[in-house]
């Protein structure tokens, strides 16, 4: 008889939600974590970034508060306190996760979890190795920052999001961010709000290259006007140490240029944390750098599953969480109630960005005839009150059926009202259905009504 019915390797949102679900089904469950419960989300990702962004937002609003009647001659930012609070918030959430797991009777094993084969896992801690057996094993080890082999990117002091979020030696005046994706732009937002000189270098033709092009284009215009330097179509070729920091060389067209800054952040993506995950001789079918899984999250080894960042095309905490729950539902022979396909994606820049479903380009590529309704929120009351940068709502419907198939929002609090569209897409609501809804005034969300009205007009054409 196996030690456990389920062992989960990785205590992030995917792992702990899988373990909690298993416990709900009465499965004897263990969870192995080599660092801290909560994983990247709680300790090095979602929560820490949003915590420090809250501090920088307060600071920025006060410094620029004159026209709102908030006068302050000496506003300081105390970075040790900002990062100290970040640690406190993470600790509070970790404690919460630990409490949940304990209440449900999940055994938490601290150490490095390594898959030794079907049904067998090793936990290593302080030189001691212990082997456990399990009927099912879920791999949820997450990802780590990735720095490609560009000369100089391995120089001492080059930051990743992990190291920058530690907040050690936070006092610098300029930061070069290599990578104009989500992580790079959220860190850019934080330091820019603190008054630092920010340069973002992105290799593709726009910021946020994997999202609707209007997000990246609009954000670039906003950030440039706010004083940031944005270099797109710029591929970094090397990084050099210089007296006061670094020179980052990049090629743009035929030209090679460099920019100088005190610090450099490499925000070029993340890779699955498989270094210690697979035992000697253990191989899993891979999909490039990720573990290949089928629709049931099964890997190429029977009764071994992979969820979250390790295997998912979209690497987000809420994706991992849902996948963890659904994976266990399937293991337990239950019909999952959760949808794993429709994933809202949010970026916490200013304005916030949120998207779900298809955008115009992906719909066109899929051969779907669509209509797009758009509202630019220049006349939205809440936007005017806060003097928001350019904000918009776009909603896409299938032309034949009028069913909503996608939405893109760039607006304050976008992350808080994207779910209307997740629901609309999931339950096949039409543009006319959404037209019936009264949205509160004044709100950012009421900008949606203008976009829907525009969509209904377009659908008549």
């Amino acid at each position, binding site marked *: 008889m196996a030690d456990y019915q389920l062992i989960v390797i990785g205590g992030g949102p995917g792992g702990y939600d899988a373990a909690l679900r298993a416990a709900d089904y009465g499965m004897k469950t263990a969870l192995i974590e080599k660092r801290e419960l909560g994983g990247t989300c709680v300790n090095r990702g979602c929560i820490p970034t949003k915590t420090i962004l809250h501090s920088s937002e307060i600071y920025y609003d006060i410094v620029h508060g004159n026209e709102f009647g908030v006068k302050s001659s000496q506003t300081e930012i105390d970075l040790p306190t900002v990062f100290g609070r970040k640690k406190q918030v993470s600790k509070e959430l970790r404690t919460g996760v630990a409490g949940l797991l304990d209440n449900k009777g999940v055994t938490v094993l601290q150490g490095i979890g390594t898959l030794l084969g079907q049904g067998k896992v090793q936990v290593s801690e302080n030189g001691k190795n212990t082997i456990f057996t399990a009927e099912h094993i879920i791999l949820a080890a997450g990802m780590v920052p990735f720095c490609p082999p560009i000369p100089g990117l391995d120089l001492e002091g080059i930051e990743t999001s992990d190291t920058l979020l530690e907040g050690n030696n936070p006092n610098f005046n300029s930061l070069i961010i290599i990578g104009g994706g989500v992580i790079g732009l959220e860190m850019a937002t934080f330091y820019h709000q603190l008054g630092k000189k920010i340069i973002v270098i992105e290799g593709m033709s726009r910021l946020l290259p994997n999202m609707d092009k209007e997000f990246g*284009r*609009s954000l670039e*215009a906003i950030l440039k*006007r706010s004083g940031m330097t944005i270099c797109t179509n710029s591929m970094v070729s090397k990084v050099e140490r210089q007296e006061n920091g670094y020179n980052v060389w990049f090629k743009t067209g035929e030209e090679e240029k460099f920019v100088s800054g005190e610090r450099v952040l490499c925000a070029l993506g993340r890779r699955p944390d498989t270094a210690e995950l697979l035992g000697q001789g253990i191989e899993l079918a891979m999909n490039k750098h990720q573990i290949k899984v089928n629709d049931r999250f099964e890997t190429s080894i029977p009764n071994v599953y992979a969820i979250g960042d390790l295997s998912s095309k979209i690497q987000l905490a809420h994706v991992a969480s849902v996948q963890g729950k659904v994976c266990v539902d399937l293991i337990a022979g239950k019909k999952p109630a959760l949808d794993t396909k429709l994933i809202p994606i949010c970026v916490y820049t200013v304005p916030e960005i949120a998207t779900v479903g298809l955008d115009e380009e992906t719909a066109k590529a899929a051969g779907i005839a669509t209509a797009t309704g758009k509202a630019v929120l220049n006349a939205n009351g809440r936007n005017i009150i806060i003097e928001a940068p*350019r904000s918009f709502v776009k909603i896409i419907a299938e032309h034949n059926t009028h069913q909503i198939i996608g939405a893109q929002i760039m607006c304050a609090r976008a992350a808080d009202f994207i779910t209307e569209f997740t629901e609309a897409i999931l339950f096949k609501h039409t543009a006319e259905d959404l037209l019936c809804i009264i949205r509160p005034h004044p709100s950012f969300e009421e900008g949606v009504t203008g976009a829907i009205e525009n969509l209904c007009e377009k659908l008549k054409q």
Partner: protein
Amino acid sequence: MEEYDIKKGYYYSKGDTWVHKEVDGAIRFGISDYAQKKLKSIIYLNLPEVGDSFQQDDSLGEVESKKSLSELICPVSGTVKTIHQEAVDEPGVLNRDPFGEGWILTLNCDCYQEDIKKLMDAAAYYDYIASREKK
């Protein structure tokens, strides 16, 4: 009728966009003085990417002012060759100098001479504006 700058040698679409073949052969695209005056403070350009292709009269993007949003009508069939990044970064230049520094993009167009036959010259565009102003 209010005075509008209508440059001779430029060709105009019914969408109030213009196209002009420069001395170096580049085919430049922009919005007319009439358009910029109607839009008032232009704050954003939503443009295609280099390499995107359009047919004559397609919408190739949008120009936004504080008050309104207008489609940018492609006056000639072609492929986007260059984007005027300075105009994207500072769209107010379209208000200040719609025919000069306010140019928006250039196009590669194989059928320029054919396509401009379907556009309005300066005199015809003047009449077109006048007919709308009367309403």
